[in-house]
């Protein structure tokens, strides 16, 4: 399958690959997987006391589209408040990366990873 130039760029130069310290109370982790293809995605965010996402890192085992989707969302969420980040939809990701219909699940994976990370942050803060 032909990947778009944007996907290729993210795969060749992935942004923000890595891990944040999960013991940091301001760091939250979203873990999601796509049973359809066995892809696994971890998205971590570091949230300031003002509720702004200061940093984001990801680690994804999957196809190029899954890697590009997670790389893209780490760029997008930085500087956003949690509410703003929660508004990112998978359709925004598919549009930006020009993903074909068979790869839509990769963008869903990335959207759900953001949601899972935000949920984890809220659970962590409530403790």
């Amino acid at each position, binding site marked *: 399958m032909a990947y778009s130039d944007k996907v290729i760029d993210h795969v060749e130069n992935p942004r923000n690959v890595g891990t944040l310290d999960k013991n940091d109370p301001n760091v939250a982790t979203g873990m999601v997987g796509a049973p359809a293809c066995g892809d696994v995605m971890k998205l971590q965010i570091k949230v300031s006391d003002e509720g702004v996402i200061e940093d984001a890192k990801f680690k994804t*085992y999957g196809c190029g589209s899954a890697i590009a989707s997670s790389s893209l969302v780490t760029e997008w969420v930085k500087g956003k408040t949690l509410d703003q980040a929660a508004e990112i939809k998978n359709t925004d990701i598919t549009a930006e990366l020009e993903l074909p219909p068979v790869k839509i*699940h990769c963008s869903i994976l990335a959207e759900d990873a953001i949601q899972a990370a935000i949920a984890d942050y809220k659970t962590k803060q409530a403790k």
Partner: protein
Amino acid sequence: MRYFELFNLPVNYDVDLTLLNQRYLELQRAVHPDKFAGKSEREKLVAVQKTSEINDALAVLKHPAKRAEYMLSEQGVDIRAEQQTLQDPVFLMQQMELREALEDIQHSSDPEDEIDAFEAQIKQLDTQYSAQLAEQLVSQDTAVLEVAADNIRKLKFIYKLREELSRIEDSLFD
């Protein structure tokens, strides 16, 4: 369930693969185009349709995940086209670690031992999630079928690990 009936096999997740293959060959012979050389167009068409049905059925029944999904859909729970994500942090964290371990194998000085150990781990996980499947898949209880669905989703990650492992083996020992 039609696919099992086609091969005259009992409806059971634990399918006898040798028997399945044997029945497949018998059926294929029975509908082989050569046998329909002098027959009517209609009979030829029926034979062609039958051939494609047999092939579809074989593809589903011989693959454990496809077989399980088929049985589940026949029970009214169809997860074959679902796009929803799995969100089980403990399971996914383990998957992440296993994927990392797989990466390490590629750079190992003694990959053979590590591959064996990894295979044993996959096998153990496979058993963990498929041990109850045969029983769950014939249940009439929706709650039990949902548990089966969750097990199948997880098994698909395990099969993915197995695929990745054999890909690594091929690249290391070819």
